[in-house]
């Protein structure tokens, strides 16, 4: 036992507790409302299982795409001075503000068979994004990517750049510097950004249903299934959402402990 270390102030703990209760009470209320009795049946119904599988596949793909495209974009925004940089940054943030349904309309106008880009995709490659799982992933990436970019850009900005200089003076090419020095140093924020974008994709509803449609087994993710159940069988819908929550809780807690626990 070490003498030392200090206890945080009461006021602070009180305020933080209010914040925690603000999240805990609604979830408790939700749990109380859920139709636990029929949950086992509802869940093992092939539609629910299918929707859950699809949700995980699509949100994970969206998180992966967010990393793939978000890392270069965040790096560019944080490190390279170019004209219109703040405009690009604003553009990337817009899907955060856009009501998801409008986001879906925007995606339709761009990637549907008659959209600005979608028409070419269809004419040249026969690629149809609406009503396809790819479309769902696209819609989820559209709403998830901004979270990743914003988080990681902040991480890159607050990092000590002299480590990168040290690495390059040791002979490391820019990509090696990025991979072996920058990335490990900002890992906590990359993990945070990935978790954020994964979670946002998992819960995404409006843009998906508008752009990709709601076809069981192909584009009907769990939030879509929940939404439909909400109209007719709200108890079942609540139970399904709680399952969604449980799954994401396991993933998020597991991931964060793994990556952030040590620090």
């Amino acid at each position, binding site marked *: 036992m070490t003498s030392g270390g200090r206890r945080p102030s009461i006021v602070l703990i009180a305020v933080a507790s209010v914040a925690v209760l603000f999240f805990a009470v609604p979830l408790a209320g939700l749990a109380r409302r859920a139709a636990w009795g029929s949950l086992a049946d509802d869940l093992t119904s092939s539609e629910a299982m299918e929707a859950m599988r699809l949700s995980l596949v699509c949100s994970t793909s969206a998180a992966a795409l967010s990393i793939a495209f978000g890392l270069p974009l965040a790096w560019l925004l944080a490190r390279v001075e170019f004209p219109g940089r703040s405009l690009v940054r604003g553009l990337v943030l817009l899907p955060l503000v856009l009501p998801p349904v409008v986001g879906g309309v925007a995606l339709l106008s761009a990637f549907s068979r008659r959209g600005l880009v979608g028409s070419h995709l269809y004419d040249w490659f026969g690629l149809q994004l609406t009503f396809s799982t790819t479309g769902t992933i696209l819609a989820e990436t559209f709403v998830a990517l901004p979270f990743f970019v914003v988080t990681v850009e902040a991480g890159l900005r607050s990092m000590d750049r002299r*480590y990168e200089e*040290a*690495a*390059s003076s*040791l*002979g*490391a090419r820019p990509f090696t510097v990025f991979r*072996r020095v920058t990335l*490990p140093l900002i890992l906590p924020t990359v993990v945070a950004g990935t978790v954020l974008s994964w979670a946002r994709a998992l819960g995404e509803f409006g843009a998906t249903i508008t752009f990709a449609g709601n076809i069981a087994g192909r584009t009907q993710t769990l939030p879509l299934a929940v939404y439909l159940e909400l109209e007719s069988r709200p108890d079942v819908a609540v139970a399904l959402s709680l399952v969604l929550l449980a799954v994401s809780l396991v993933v998020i807690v597991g991931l964060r402990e793994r990556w952030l626990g040590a620090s």
Partner: protein
Amino acid sequence: MTLTVSCRTVVGPLDLDVSFEVARGEVVALIGPNGAGKTSLLRVVAGLRGVEEGRVSLDGDVLVDSSEGMFVAPEARPVGTVFQDYLLFPHLSVLENVAFGLRSRGIGRREARTIASAWIERVGLASYAAAKPTELSGGQSQRVALARALAVDPDVLLLDEPLAALDAATRAATRRDLRSHLERFDGATLLVTHDPLDALALADRVVVLEAGQVTQAGTIGEVVARPRTPYVAELLGVNLLRGEGSGHEVRLDGGGTVAVADPVEGPALVLIRPRSVTLHHDRPEGSARNRWRSTVDSLDLMGDRVRVRLSGEPCVVAEVTTGAVGELGLVEGAEVWATVKATDVTAYPS
């Protein structure tokens, strides 16, 4: 493998404007007061900072040339650097830190680790190979940084105060070790240091940088024999006075005159070593040609000697034994007579 630097660039409040060469196998010490631009100059050579005008080249190979718009990226320069504040990668172990440069230059994992281990052993940290930099003390970190820069066997070695954080015991050993490496090293070495001992022990030549300008350059011997600025004199612990020579006498700018053995004409610098200054309680008789009244300003104990700062015409520092302090009753404010033999005074044109 001659490194040729000739450049001009603005660094914050400083106008850095320097030209010098470092030949193959040569070690040049870059000394100068805080904020003189030493670190900035190393950054220019390493490619971490651009220049506004000028050229840095290595034999025929241009590293940067403003007139041709050439700029070689830092990672493509055969330059190894020990940074002033270590900059060890906090997420890598000591071994991985030292192996980093080797791996970056395409050497295989196993070979890189072998070479890195040898270097870690050489700086006496074999038992810390698996430790993370945060577990190291300041001095241990510095030694790892040294090993990391040396491991890649660069053509040009840049050392930004590589020994500053080492304790005296380790410092002497590391200095010896560093010197043996520098002797075997056939590239050009540029060493920033604050410690004249480092410069004396390690460097062939000295470049003195003050406020972005080179104020003196030459071999250690030349600089020690004929310091040209108050900074260098203070660094060497000697008295440097400026004046106007006419024959065997120099009229000092700060007042008073000094008799010198060898005649000098026109603007001159006068060098008096503190050990040559003798102090007396009463007006001394004898052969010493220079003799003046002074007041004791302050006393500094240096080992078994005491440095006495005197104000008078001229103001000088004298070095006496601890015993003399008691005998002469040297306390701050005491009045004493100082004498220096003309043969102990060196004068040369400024």
